[in-house]
């Protein structure tokens, strides 16, 4: 029987001719990732290992992005701990303030994640790199520690759900709307333990930034990974960003899928996930009157250049509504620079938005935009759980950069056309 794209990558990394869903394997890792929250816990676990050192100083990436520039003394202690570890083990891909960006935007940009890789990261949104045809998945700190020490990880080979993407999206429909639509359809555990394999003719109508957004939120459907085939658009991105050789795997024609869905991009509308689960989706015409207090445009889901361009297009020459705080966060230093050179940052500031240095801050209720009791935020981030961005009585509405920017102008959840 044929293998899915994910199964082929895992088989190669485990040195096996074939693998089957449910099989337990040990795979060689191409990259192990951690951030300023998860790495200190991993370093603590590393101390318990009988052997000293890391498996490969170039195959570990440590990105200080959640609570930096440090929001308080405890966060500073955490970063110090990671900084010293990186120095001690000569970790080449250690990214601190000034070089850092939000990890899942930064690593592809730096060329550290390429097609065919097997990547684990102590951050649930590590599934983002599937957009480039890699197998990548989120793990906890102990798995990260074991990965750093041994260069290996155990996996249960996943079965898969196939999403056959067809058609062309209308003007204001982006990758965010595609993945919110899918999560609304299958639920927050609809892909539990499984791969989400995106394929089909319509993929050529999705930019790399759209694909990163879609793969990024596979975890919000419970998925182990989300993965795209390597087409011309992906190949061009890989060649433009990485000197590393990449390897293209394709699903066998007779690969078996638990389910297959067809998604016609031309039928999708801007989509919003209501509190308190990403599956509580409504299309923009079903939303009704929802007054808001804050807008966040950024994160590993939607802080890339395409996202900022769309938001700027809508905010250009307009003003953020009185009483609304609009926070824009370019995901990396390079995106920040490009947005500056294109004049996007000027557009944001003139509209009355604030532009922040790269950070995960507000997405997880860390800092830089915490919500008070009863407040509502339209956010381009990935989770709208109870208390996610602040007070347990606050509310988060997940949407695309287009909807977020339009809502900032009107002060209520709004369609980009408005």
């Amino acid at each position, binding site marked *: 029987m044929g293998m899915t794209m994910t199964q082929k990558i895992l088989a190669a990394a485990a040195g096996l001719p074939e693998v089957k869903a449910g099989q*337990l394997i040990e795979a060689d890792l191409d990259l192990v990732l951690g951030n300023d929250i*998860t790495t200190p*816990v991993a370093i603590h676990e590393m101390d318990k290992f*009988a052997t000293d050192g890391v498996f490969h100083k170039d195959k570990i990436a440590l990105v200080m992005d959640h609570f930096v520039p440090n929001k308080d003394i405890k966060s500073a202690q955490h970063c110090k701990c990671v900084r010293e570890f990186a120095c001690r083990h000569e970790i080449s891909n250690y990214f601190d303030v000034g070089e850092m960006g939000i990890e899942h935007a930064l690593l592809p940009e730096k060329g550290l994640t390429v097609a065919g890789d097997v990547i684990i990261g102590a951050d*649930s949104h590590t599934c983002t790199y599937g957009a480039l045809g890699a197998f990548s998945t989120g793990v906890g700190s102990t798995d990260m520690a*074991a990965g750093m020490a041994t260069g290996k990880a155990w996996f249960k080979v996943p079965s898969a759900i196939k999403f056959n993407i067809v058609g062309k999206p209308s003007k204001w429909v982006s990758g965010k709307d595609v993945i919110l639509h899918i999560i609304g359809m299958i639920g927050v555990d609809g892909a539990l333990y499984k791969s989400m394999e995106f394929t089909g003719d319509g993929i050529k109508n999705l930019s790399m930034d759209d694909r990163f957004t879609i793969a990024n939120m596979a975890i919000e459907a419970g998925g*182990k990974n989300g993965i795209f085939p390597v087409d011309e658009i992906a190949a061009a991105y890989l060649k433009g960003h990485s000197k590393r050789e990449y390897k293209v795997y394709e699903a066998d024609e007779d690969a078996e899928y638990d389910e297959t869905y067809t998604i016609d991009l031309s039928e999708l509308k801007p989509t919003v996930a209501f509190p308190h689960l990403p599956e509580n989706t409504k299309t923009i015409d079903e939303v009704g009157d929802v007054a808001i207090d804050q807008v966040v445009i950024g994160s590993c889901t939607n802080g890339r250049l395409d996202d900022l361009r769309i938001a700027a297009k809508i905010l250009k020459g307009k003003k953020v509504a009185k009483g609304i705080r609009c926070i824009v966060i370019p995901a990396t230093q390079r995106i920040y620079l490009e947005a500056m050179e294109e004049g996007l940052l000027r557009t944001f500031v003139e509209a009355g938005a604030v532009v922040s240095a790269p950070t995960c801050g507000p997405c*997880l*209720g860390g800092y830089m935009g915490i919500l008070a009791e009863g407040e509502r935020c339209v956010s381009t981030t990935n989770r709208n*759980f109870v208390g996610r961005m602040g007070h347990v009585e606050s509310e988060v509405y997940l949407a695309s950069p287009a909807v977020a920017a339009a809502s900032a102008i009107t002060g209520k959840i709004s369609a980009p056309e408005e």
Partner: protein
Amino acid sequence: MKASGTVFKYGDNVDTDVIIPARYLNSSDPKELAQHCMEDIDKEFVHKVKAGDLIVADKNFGCGSSREHAPIAIKAAGVSCVIAETFARIFYRNAINIGLPIIECKEASKGIADGDEVEVDFDSGIITNKTKGTTFQGQAFPEFMQKIIRAEGLVNYINQKQKEEAGESR
């Protein structure tokens, strides 16, 4: 090995943000994390929980963030076992890796209420609701995972394995 205690019962999709909110992730100290365990879903939890108590939930327990702080907080709060209909996959891995016993059992999740007294036999996977006088068969772990659990976590398991391999090559 057995666990026994009073049950704290929750519903579907208990996410790691409510298990341990990110505002406390500037610490990685288990004792400190335990003081805020379940804070955004059940403010009374930390005041009521006793060593040995159990958490029972419905579908997709531990969804969301990969923060290992979540199972660490639960374990450090004294919880002896988490039973759920299903677990989110990263939480499942993390619980095994740090040695927090978890069991998937749909029937137990449906047949156990908040405040019930429950006993779990980890060797047989049998869950007994002592309050209602009912029993359930929990799903056994694959052998590979049992080895990690017996070693009390992934790091110890890898240390043991490396020691064995070094012994063989001698």
